[in-house]
């Protein structure tokens, strides 16, 4: 198993190696096949050619095995070499054992892997033309067989169409990994840059990496660099690499010690560059970059760079892989930004909602109290009895004080309350309300223990206060039963009393209490009222999930 893993790592992301090794194997196979069963005179004619071909194939493979720069540099030359060999083989071998098809496939495959369908098509056309020209040149010779020529020509055309299709589609397929593989890395409350970089380093097996992302149009950007198992945040004042204006986002292979960089725009050709002409070498060295890949990241609102170095077996395939990785990292960052926006939006809405609660209860109460004091003052001036009014005002202040205390206690919680804890809070509130209104107020609960968000907890307390006040003030109730249950993502609150019920409009159904209805609607819940003399039941359903907003 270990050997298999080693073998796979030798060729993973190394199409250059696969092509050159394929060439070596073809050359040696051809050499052995030709050497067996041939006369001395036949061998004398083909031996130098076969030796030259096999020798060159081995030299190319050895020279480019660990050198992505040379692999890219020699790519066009070796491609021409492969096409020339095909032409020679096609007209020097006959019969069913002729390996001409293999020598046709080799340059087509290498074009499809290295470049795109256009280069694959161009290679195929050139090869077929070479084949045709050769055929016409040999037409009059004794060795030329028209039937064999037509058959081979047809095979070449069919193979060409198949390989062109392959070359065209491999660009669109996500060959290395899928975005859903990266979904698990998106979690709330984590450093998005660190997590995204960790994902990119894991996918590329890079020992070092840096991710720099800033808002479009701004020079400064946030960065995270990781190497040797340690990471740190930093602020980047300058761009790590130069943006190419044509052909979309780019990826660069770089070797800072050799001063080289290599890029290839999508659907384009290799471009050999001096590292200093496209990379801010000082900044790159400061971050620890040596040899690796830099890829450009563009999202809707941000732009940045992903740099990976100390990548095992770096090859020209990393131009594509790096670009794909950068695209995925960009998508991850956008998801983090979306989570942030949702969180920020929910926090803003909760804050506004709390501010409205404070305004509606405390500010209105104090304003009312001030009007009452003014009224008492005027009454005192005209000799009226003020003691009953002052007693009533004192009672109202005590009542409001307990409400504010409950509100502050809920705000002090650093976490969501479990259902049992929320019920305990409601029982304490019911006891206070019972004393305040001189009623028998009880709370019962059922359901699994689930976290109750702060907003929902405040709503429940306020709803119970308002429902109890309504029952006593308008219905004259002396017994109130509050029920709380959780089921199917909903919190259900019921407040039943033995009062005279809500008044009806025009003999129709009872009017819904405004204050309760408004609060329930704000929490995206529903309210149902069963009211009849002697029995009133307010049934409220609030969603657990919507409570954060």
């Amino acid at each position, binding site marked *: 198993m270990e050997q298999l893993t080693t073998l796979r790592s030798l060729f993973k992301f190394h199409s250059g190696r696969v092509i050159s090794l394929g060439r070596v194997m073809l050359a040696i196979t051809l050499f052995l096949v030709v050497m067996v069963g041939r006369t001395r005179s036949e061998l004398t004619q083909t031996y130098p050619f076969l030796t030259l071909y096999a020798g060159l194939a081995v030299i190319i493979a050895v020279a480019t095995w660990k050198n992505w720069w040379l692999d890219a540099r020699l790519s066009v030359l070796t491609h021409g070499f492969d096409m020339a060999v095909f032409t020679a083989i096609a007209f020097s071998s006959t019969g069913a054992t002729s390996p001409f098809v293999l020598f046709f496939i080799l340059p087509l495959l290498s074009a499809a892997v290295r470049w795109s369908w256009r280069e694959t098509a161009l290679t195929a056309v050139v090869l077929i033309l070479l084949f045709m020209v050769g055929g016409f040149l040999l037409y009059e010779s004794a060795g030329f067989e028209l039937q064999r020529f037509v058959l081979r020509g047809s095979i070449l055309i069919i193979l060409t169409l198949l390989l062109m299709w392959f070359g065209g589609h491999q660009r669109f397929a996500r060959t290395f990994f899928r975005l859903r593989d990266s979904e698990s890395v998106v979690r709330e409350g984590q450093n998005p840059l660190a997590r995204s970089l960790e994902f990119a380093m894991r996918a590329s097996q890079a020992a070092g990496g840096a991710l720099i992302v800033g808002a479009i149009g701004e020079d400064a950007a946030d960065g995270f660099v990781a190497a040797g198992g340690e990471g740190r945040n930093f602020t980047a004042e300058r761009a790590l690499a130069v943006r190419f204006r044509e052909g979309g986002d780019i990826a660069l292979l770089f070797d800072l010690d050799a001063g080289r960089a290599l890029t290839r725009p999508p659907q384009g050709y290799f471009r050999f560059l001096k590292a200093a002409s496209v990379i801010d070498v000082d900044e790159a060295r400061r971050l620890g970059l040596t040899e690796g890949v830099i890829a450009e990241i563009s999202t809707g*609102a941000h732009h940045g760079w992903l740099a990976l170095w100390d990548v095992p077996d770096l090859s020209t395939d990393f131009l594509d892989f790096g670009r794909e990785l950068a695209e995925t990292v960009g998508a991850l960052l956008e998801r983090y930004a979306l989570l942030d926006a949702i969180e*920020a939006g929910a926090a803003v809405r909760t804050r506004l909602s709390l501010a409205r609660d404070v305004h509606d209860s405390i500010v*209105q109460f104090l*304003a009312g109290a001030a*009007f009452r004091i003014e009224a008492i003052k005027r*009454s005192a001036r005209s000799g009226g009895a003020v003691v009953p009014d002052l007693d009533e005002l004192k009672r109202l202040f005590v009542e409001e004080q307990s409400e504010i205390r409950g509100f502050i206690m809920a705000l002090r919680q650093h976490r969501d309350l479990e259902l049992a804890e929320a019920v305990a809070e409601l029982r304490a509130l019911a006891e206070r309300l019972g004393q305040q209104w001189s009623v028998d107020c009880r709370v019962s609960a059922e359901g699994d223990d689930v976290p109750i968000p702060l907003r929902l907890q405040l709503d429940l307390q306020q709803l119970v206060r308002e429902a109890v006040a309504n029952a006593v003030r308008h219905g004259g109730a002396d017994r109130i039963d509050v029920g709380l249950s959780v089921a199917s993502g909903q919190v259900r609150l019921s407040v039943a009393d033995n009062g005279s019920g809500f008044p009806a409009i025009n003999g129709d159904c009872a009017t819904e209490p*405004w204050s309760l209805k408004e609060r329930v609607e704000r929490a995206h819940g529903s309210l149902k009222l069963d009211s009849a003399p002697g029995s009133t039941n307010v049934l409220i359903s609030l969603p657990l999930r919507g409570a954060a907003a």
Partner: protein
Amino acid sequence: MTRVLLVDDHPMIGAALEMLLRGSSYELLGRARSVAEANRAIPREKPDLILLDVNLPDGTGLDVLRRLVRTRARPRVILLTAGMDESQLLTAADLRPEGMVLKTSDPGLLTEAMDAVAAGNRWIDPEIADRTRRAQERADSTPALTRRERELIELVRQGLRNRDIATELGVTEGTVKVYLHAIFDKLQVENRTELALRAAELISR
């Protein structure tokens, strides 16, 4: 005797005003707790003066006032508020109620305002007048949005990415980015999240 209707949902305010007007030259006809109740009570009770709260459970006092402004002979109105945002202040200034009183000001100012309005004058709380003037200046100094900018804000509000917005508007992604930055500068918002959250308010300017 001036006949008064109170439109306010808060029990404490209702009870307090009832006490305050007791024995005065004002007769409290009753109390409406919502826009719907107010719209029913006004033609029925035919008050001379309405004390109208701005924030009501089923709408705003400004909705009640807007409806009243369209009627030929309407009662005088004093807006009674614990606080209004800028757009409410500007709307209130357009509707021109006879009085505007802050609940948080000295309670004695309410009776002063009622006396002034009952005598046919206007009485606006100095703090409200000052805030309205500043809101008006800010609204005047904010550059107007173009039709294309309004379209773009609406698309941002819908959560579309720049690429999708570009397709929707038939422009390049680069143009969308340029437009967005111009909008950020114009409206003094920090980012697209703030733009999306405040879109309704910004477009209505």
